């Protein structure tokens, strides 16, 4: 087809473009993905039985805060990565700040704590806690990641691998938020290591699928 004819065809019946559509799509995707992760948590492991008692409420709040800060740090860059020309503004220190800061706090707590408590601090309430945590968070993050990728495809991501990795981190954050209500291990080092590792797995998965799924 002749290029001039193509231009004519493209500019014929031109529709008005609504602004802010991308942001709305992404937020919708996050709400849907988060709800799906939460529903999946309720359907499988279920919330921790002592969730009603106030003693453990603060720990659920801390886990939720951790997950929300991971999401909050990633989302602005996810929105930027959908718009060509802004993709170079990705600041990894900002995105990784919640994860790294928690590791630093965990390290300080380990140093200050007694060595006898290290085992419980690092590996949680029972021997299966780390494995359960890793499995559940990555499992709960699968639907959020899929929905996020669907939303990102509405945009025009340029650096597909990086965009996929950030989507993985945000999806991991959503999965961590859901699992936080089911998790019985109430220590900062546990959260720093195992939640962080699960989110890192999601980021790697996102970076792997990004180039093929986000292509346009």
């Amino acid at each position: 087809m002749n290029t001039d004819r193509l231009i004519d065809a493209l500019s014929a019946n031109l529709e008005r473009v609504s602004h802010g559509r991308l942001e709305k799509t992404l937020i919708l995707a996050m709400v849907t993905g988060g709800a799906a992760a939460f529903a999946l948590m309720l359907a499988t492991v279920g919330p921790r039985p002592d969730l009603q008692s106030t003693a453990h409420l603060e720990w659920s709040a801390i886990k939720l805060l951790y997950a929300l800060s991971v999401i909050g740090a990633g989302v602005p860059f996810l929105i930027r990565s959908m718009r060509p020309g802004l993709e170079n503004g990705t600041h990894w220190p900002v995105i990784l700040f919640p994860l790294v800061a928690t590791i630093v706090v965990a390290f300080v707590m380990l140093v200050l704590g007694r060595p006898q408590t290290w085992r419980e601090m690092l590996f949680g309430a029972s021997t299966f806690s780390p494995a359960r945590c890793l499995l559940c968070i990555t499992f709960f993050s699968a639907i959020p990641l899929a929905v996020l990728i669907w939303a990102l495809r509405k945009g025009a991501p340029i650096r597909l691998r990086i965009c996929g990795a950030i989507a993985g981190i945000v999806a991991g954050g959503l999965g961590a938020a859901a699992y936080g209500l089911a998790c019985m291990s109430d220590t900062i080092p546990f959260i720093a290591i195992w939640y962080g590792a699960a989110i890192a797995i999601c980021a790697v998965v996102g970076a792997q699928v990004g180039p093929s799924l986000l292509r346009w």
Partner: protein
Amino acid sequence: MTAGLDGDAIAYHRLLERLTGHLRAYYRNRFARIGHGAAQAEDLLQEVLIAVHTHRHTYDLSQPFTPWIHAIARYKFLDYLRRTKYSFKDMPIERAEELTADSDMAAIESGLDLHRLMSQISLKARKAIQYVKLEGLSVSEAATRCGISESAVKVAVHRGLKALALQVRKESGA
């Protein structure tokens, strides 16, 4: 672009036309460097125009336009490279010769050379050579197109070729 996003078809048409000029130069240049033809460049150009159209909502009005279009153009070029590299890989080895034989680097290079040489001779001679020698029109057809007599076309072609030959000699001697 702003007007185009608001649905102003005339402004949008003008924008696409101007973009086409820039993008064509950009891709021709890139494609010549990697040894791919101008036809492929035109295909990719059309693909980019469609991409610009279908992704126009990703342009943020508060941001400058050039980085946006440049990011898309570069993305599509890299995507093209990736795509063609994969198709090279997927091809069985027995057919590899077809691919290498298909290289039109020589055609492009000589085309560029000719254009450069032609730009150095007079407009009248250039037109005459273009019609008669390159496009294969008859002398009378070329005469009606140029609006001059048949003998004038013949003279123009003759003089133009002489001037071209002189240019070639000068360049190969230098």
